């Protein structure tokens, strides 16, 4: 069937929502296509009544039904739980990771000497020199002057 451009206006009229009832009525008198469309809509509405019937919740079952609703109302809110657990774990992992990073990379502090290098020579008068090799293959040299200045 060819569609008529009045189809949507006819549909509004069929649903009782039209503001141009007279015009639609006149058109229906002239347009077999739209009359056929109205017949289809009527048939569809009749069929919809077939599936429209539905047994509700009878009075005898209402106490169980209402108990189910009360149970849901009183149940503790759970949707935060998962989120908080994940956030806590993530924060803990971040703290541990950051701490580990600091420990491993270290900071510029006085090198702890593990061994004294056998001999170091200096040409600075009156100064004594001590040198130590650090844990990471580096060497730390301490130069002491007579008045203790380093």
């Amino acid at each position: 069937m060819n569609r008529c451009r009045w189809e949507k206006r006819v549909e509004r009229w069929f649903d009782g929502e039209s503001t141009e009832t007279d015009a639609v009525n006149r058109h229906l008198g002239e347009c077999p296509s739209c009359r056929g469309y109205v017949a289809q809509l009527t048939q569809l509405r009749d069929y919809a009544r077939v599936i429209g019937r539905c047994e509700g919740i009878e009075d005898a079952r209402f106490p169980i039904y209402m108990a189910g609703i009360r149970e849901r109302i009183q149940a503790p809110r759970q949707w935060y739980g998962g989120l908080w657990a994940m956030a806590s774990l993530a924060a803990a992992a971040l703290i541990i990771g950051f701490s580990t990073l600091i420990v491993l990379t270290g900071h510029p502090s006085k090198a702890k000497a593990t061994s004294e290098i056998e001999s170091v020579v200096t040409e600075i008068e009156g100064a004594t020199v001590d040198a130590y090799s650090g844990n990471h293959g580096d060497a730390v040299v301490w130069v002491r002057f007579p008045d203790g200045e380093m």
Partner: protein
Amino acid sequence: MSMAVQYTAWREARPEADSALARRCDRTEPSDAELAGRAQTGDCEAFERLVRRYRNMVFALCFRLVGRREDAWDLSQDVFLKAYKGLKGFRGEASFKTWLMRITANRCKDFLKKRRLTTVAYEDALRADEAPSPAPDPSRALEANEVGAAIAGAVQALSPKHRTAFVLREIEGLAYEEMARVMGCTLGTVMSRLHYARKKIQAALLRQGVVEEMHHE
């Protein structure tokens, strides 16, 4: 005919109805607005009265949208849970019924998105208590059952938004404006979805041979 007689006749014709007219006739029955106001302050008895009043409407709409009674039972309880939690936000701009229908439509839409149902639950479509009244001829009863299953299947095959539009108009009988409030969209969108839903269902029924092409002179 007196008001009381009219009311009795009306109630006998619609025993499951629980509408505003019934409440007007029963002077002790508070309005939705009154009950909602009391429920907002924590009055559980008022909330229970609202549940009792609208349980069938909510259940039926859930069933028509998702197609299974078991799911409709759970979903309708969820709807009332959401309504209870959202009572503080209910300002009375729309009627309580429309507000509740909106929660129902949204809840069913979310449920269907998760389940991505595209097939009908045939056991629900073929339930004898939902079929048309039994015909004296068994073959006509079978035919009626088949038509019921076919149209239920065609409705369930629609997307949630188109299914909602069709159910709200053809089964719940809502006006376009009320549909727009329930579906949270414009009037134009309501008309467009309804038009599309009708076309799709009609095409499905044609394919199955349930209806014939209309040639009107």
